[in-house]
């Protein structure tokens, strides 16, 4: 029995802010910044949302779509760099909120933007070894860039949850492999509110090198080339990087079409590639091959060679909202409201 994706769900908060609006506050041409990044709008979580609530919404959708009995879940792993607690797992709250506790294991993963794909690999291992029936892998973030920093134009909120198992698999994982080095392109020190980054150093030696090397190794191991894939999904810190790396590797716009969601919702960090994958699964038919390559700063890439199955034809993906809904909808808010929602306003008193 081959392990793979049994079900999935995505969730993106309702609010949006445009680069133009952010630029207006900082005295820069935000629209030009947005065009440079390939980001039209980014999502903003409501004051009562965090990675725990986003994870729960996405996972509840996934469980209903797959008809999964939560008591059959053996592991819940939540990958994020914006866990609400520094100490106390996101995963236990999420597991409790979907009724999966107590006969299971849970943990939070952190690897910048690829903690979610790392969680999928961990689940594949447990499921493949027959240790658990279903494993839950979630990638989600409510990340923040420092006010005025380039990151502020893209750092957004959202997540996707995947049920990994061996029964009624809608997308088989034919192969997964990773490429990992010590590359300090982006980091956040303990206790610091906002991340720091190496500017253009985040490009060639970091994102492009890892994604490209990981993809090449996967093609080599699987004996495939870009033309074998109906869809490709890259980590997408902005709208430009994934398109550029896709072209470099030899993928067409059509192959990248559904996997690219950042232009509409911003960079959801650990959620980015996984929401892209959810969008691909929303549109894919049975028997389509999908390449997923995540990237996390620090740095590493996880590549997945997936193929959708006949199960996808009868899969109840109508339940919950499709990713397209989140790409098309949203309520734009001004910077002042965004600043209030994100706790950027210094409040007096106790």
């Amino acid at each position: 029995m081959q392990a793979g994706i049994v079900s999935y769900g995505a969730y993106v908060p309702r609010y949006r802010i445009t680069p133009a609006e952010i630029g207006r506050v900082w005295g820069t041409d935000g629209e030009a910044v947005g065009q440079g990044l390939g980001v039209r709008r980014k999502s903003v979580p409501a004051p009562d949302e965090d990675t725990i609530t986003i994870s729960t919404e996405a996972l509840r959708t996934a469980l209903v779509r797959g008809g999964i009995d939560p008591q059959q879940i053996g592991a819940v792993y939540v990958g994020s760099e914006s866990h609400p607690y520094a100490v106390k797992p996101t995963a236990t709250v999420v597991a409790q909120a979907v009724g999966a506790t107590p006969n299971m294991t849970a943990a939070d993963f952190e690897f910048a933007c690829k903690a979610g794909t790392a969680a999928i690999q961990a689940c594949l291992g447990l499921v493949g070894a027959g240790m658990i029936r279903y494993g839950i892998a979630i990638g989600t973030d409510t990340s923040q860039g420092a006010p005025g920093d380039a990151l502020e134009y893209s750092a957004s909120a959202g997540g996707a949850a995947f049920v990994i198992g061996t029964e009624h698999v809608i997308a088989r994982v034919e192969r997964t492999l990773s490429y990992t080095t010590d590359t300090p392109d982006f980091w956040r020190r303990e206790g610091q509110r906002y991340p720091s980054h190496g500017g253009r150093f985040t490009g060639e030696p970091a994102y492009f090198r890892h994604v490209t090397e990981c993809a090449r190794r996967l093609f080599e191991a699987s004996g495939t080339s870009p033309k074998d894939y109906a869809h490709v999904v890259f980590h997408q810190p902005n709208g430009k990087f994934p398109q550029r790396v896709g072209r470099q590797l030899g993928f067409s716009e059509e192959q990248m079409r559904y996997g690219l969601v950042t232009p509409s919702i911003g960079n959801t960090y650990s959620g980015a590639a996984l929401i892209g994958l959810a969008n691909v699964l929303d549109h894919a038919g049975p028997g389509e091959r999908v390449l997923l390559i995540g990237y996390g700063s620090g740095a590493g890439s996880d590549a997945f060679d997936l193929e959708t199955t006949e199960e996808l034809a009868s899969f109840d993906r109508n339940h919950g909202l499709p990713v397209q809904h989140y790409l098309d909808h949203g309520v734009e808010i001004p910077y002042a409201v965004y600043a209030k929602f994100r706790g950027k306003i210094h409040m007096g008193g106790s």
Partner: protein
Amino acid sequence: MSVARFWRETPRRYNLAGSRCAVCGNVYFPPRAVCPSCPHHRQSIEKMLPFQLSGAGEVISYTIVHEAAEGFEMQVPYVLALVKTVEGPVLTGQVVDIEPAEVGIGLKVRATFRKLREEGKAGVIHYGYKFSPVVEEELGRRPAGPRASVPSPTGGHEQARA
């Protein structure tokens, strides 16, 4: 609020775990130890079985709160509603992800999972149900909401009937 006080209610607040009287069939939320509907209340003792609400319902009354309850100050104006669930019980909760002016009696909603409040910057975070409108794309489909089944004392899993 002490950590334990909120924690002990999490099955209800997270998963809408209510109870159903095995004698008369009425559903209650929060769960009750004694059935208020049975003519002989004592008959129902130990017959109030776990029963989970689906979270689907409709607004039967609502208000737009401008002077917030403690811990809700950052959310004003917020919508507080009475939601009649499809299983019968009425719940008090916020309606989120909607413009206050768009809320009305009869609005179809589903339970969502949100932060209720934080015990300050360093304290524990409380989570629980709120409601969000069922968007057009979802209408006509099965209502979403928490679906997790609740283990019953008999070892079975009773599902909401929605």
